[in-house]
């Protein structure tokens, strides 16, 4: 038993390094997509203290809008632009109709409101687009669909070009976000709101504008995530489920930390894949990905309740 836990997995890694590379690559692809979803949560939480339960359905809604617009005969990239416009209108509507009337209410009320947004988007999306599985317009968007086959150490490593594209685009999006938050006026305003609401409002930062902005950015992230995941297995309401994969990322990285979301996503993506392949499948019959990330996050929380990168909150009584 000890051999199976402590020796055999590492022996397997050394025996087939090409396979280990494949495992790490798959983990990296999953991880960067988890990080993207987690970023959507973090941005909204930082600026408004709202845990956005609707992030998952926003992924579905964005992807369905894109595919639906293209099905109407609109060229792919114009469909992308129109989808972004729809996500902007959605952000404005959420701010006006849902959030503004609830300013000053307890956090749990705002959280419940995002559950309401989720249910509304599910019903609205079903009425407009139907619940059938749809094909993502991968090729129309110019995303290559072939594979790159490498033979490291005489083995086999298959890299899907659409996965490479997803990693590159997600990476660029993260860099752009970091630049936006660090170098622009609006970005600094978002960070200011995250640091201290009262102080930010007192220096003239508009809460309404920032809320629209962060929900719109979450919409952009949702669209990119929807394209990347939809290219793998089609676009359907099942995509909503993947948002739950971001929860342990948030627990691990901290709800307020952009760095935490990125590093947490990558860590969970790669570690859960390594654990599943080298320990979960041989010793536990597989499907450990369902719980591994949560257990990892819980262990971290035992030692750092605020997550790896979250802010330590000290409240004086």
């Amino acid at each position, binding site marked *: 038993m000890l051999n199976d836990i402590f020796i055999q997995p590492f022996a397997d890694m050394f025996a087939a390094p090409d*396979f280990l590379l*494949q495992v790490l690559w798959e983990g990296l692809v999953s991880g960067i997509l988890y990080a993207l979803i987690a970023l959507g949560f973090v941005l909204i939480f930082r600026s408004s203290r709202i845990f956005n339960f609707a992030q998952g359905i926003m992924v579905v809604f964005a992807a369905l809008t894109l595919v639906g617009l293209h099905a109407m005969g609109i060229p792919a990239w114009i469909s992308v632009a129109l989808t972004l416009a729809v996500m902007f209108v959605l952000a404005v509507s959420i701010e006006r109709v849902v959030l503004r009337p609830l300013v000053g209410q307890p956090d749990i009320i705002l959280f419940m409101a995002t559950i309401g947004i989720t249910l509304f988007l599910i019903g609205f999306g079903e009425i407009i687009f139907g619940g059938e599985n749809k094909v993502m317009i991968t090729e129309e968007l110019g995303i290559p669909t072939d594979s790159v086959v490498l033979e490291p150490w005489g083995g086999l490593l298959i890299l899907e070009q659409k996965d490479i594209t997803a990693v590159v685009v997600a990476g660029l999006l993260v860099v752009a976000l970091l630049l936006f938050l660090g170098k622009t006026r609006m970005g600094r305003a978002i960070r200011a709101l995250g640091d201290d609401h009262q102080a930010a409002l007192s220096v003239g930062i508009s809460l309404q504008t920032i809320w629209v902005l962060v929900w719109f950015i979450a919409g952009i992230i949702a669209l990119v995530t929807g394209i990347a995941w939809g290219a793998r297995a089609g676009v359907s*309401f*099942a995509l909503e*489920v993947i948002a*739950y994969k971001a929860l342990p990322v948030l627990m691990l990285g901290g709800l307020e930390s952009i760095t935490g979301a990125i590093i947490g996503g990558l860590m969970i993506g790669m570690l859960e894949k390594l654990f599943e392949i080298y320990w979960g499948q041989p010793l536990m019959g597989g*499907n450990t990905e*369902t719980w591994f990330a949560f257990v990892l996050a819980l262990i971290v929380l035992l030692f750092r309740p605020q997550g790896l990168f979250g802010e330590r909150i000290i409240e004086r009584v």
Partner: protein
Amino acid sequence: MKTLTKLAGAAALGALMAGGAMAEGLYTPNLAYRTGPFAATGIPLMNGQKDYMELMNARDGGIGGIAIDFDECETGYSTEKGVECYEKTKGKAIVTQPWSTGITLQVLPKTNVDEIPILAPGYGFSPMADGKVFQWAFNIPLSYWDGASILIKYLGSQGDLSGKKIAFLHLDHPFGKEPLPYLEAAAEAQGFELVPIPVGLKEMQNQSAQWLQIRRERPDYVIMWGWGAMNAGAITEAVKTKFPMENMLGVWWAGHDADLKIVGDAGKGYKSVSWSFPNPEAPIMADLQKYVVEPGKTLSNAEEMSGVFYSRGLVISMVLGEGIRVAQEHAGKAEISPADLRWGLENLDITEERLEELGMTGMVPPFSTSCNNHTGHSGGWILEWDGEKFVKASDLIMPDSDMIAPLEEKAAMDYAEANQPWPVNEECGG
């Protein structure tokens, strides 16, 4: 004034609701899932079921002169919501159609008390075939053990399975685990190695870990017990990892045209067992066009109507419709009770002649049921994806009943013993 307006509005709404409740006919609720992660597979099935009953009402004035009150209660494929739907509809229902193995297992003991037949065509608990123990449950015309047996028989016809390795990629859910007892017994009997590979609900769209395991295990065949988004996820990964598509086979719920269209040509050679097949030339399709599509009563579309799942929905409602007809003839009345319907479902005889009369030739194999046989064990075809649609790749293959029957009997008795007191129909001879 405002109060008056509100009262008037409430009265109008009340009148409307009362009108709805007074709708006459045989109440046959369907615990549908048009929403949620499995909606993509649910919608065409539900549309087919609904359209068949619409056709009966529009063309024939119902069945036996009484309208069919076909209603849907949305479950989203959630077991909890399914049980709620069952409780909500059981009062006046003559049948319950739970539409998930998880929901079926939950309502199975309740239907014994409520005395309502469960109609679970092609799903549910395989030992429900034993009508002596499961008096109120029907999984017509094939059980999951039958399906697994047909797949193993087909693979056996391609070459001796002894020493071969078969990966069993399945949803980690009661549905996905259901064929395991049969497959384990078959592996022992035929000398092949079975490698079960579960797929979690949250991993359906990203099965890279499961397919890395398949790459490591190098199985000769992959049998997939998939549902909803899991099917497209698995087939995409199979294409990506270059697994030979002709060596991948699925259960009937993993043979959905829309899932395969996502991979298109790359999915050529993929196979699925099926107990139904679309026949665009069948007279029922012309009738559906005339009585349901043209008057705007369908929620479906031409592309969906040509697919395997819509056609299966039609077959499922046909089974219920025939059960009602047989029950009416036996009871001598149109307005039958759940107990009458149970008799009807136990005495189905769907022959080639009857299928021709129904305008459904070739859409389902002939089968018959009895008090003791609540499944019918119709046999199934192997369908193959040709890049655009599913085509038949085999003649009708019958399940290995000699092997399945003792397994069913034992599992049924084990279930009854574990759920005492469990009424058994001792009058059931065969």
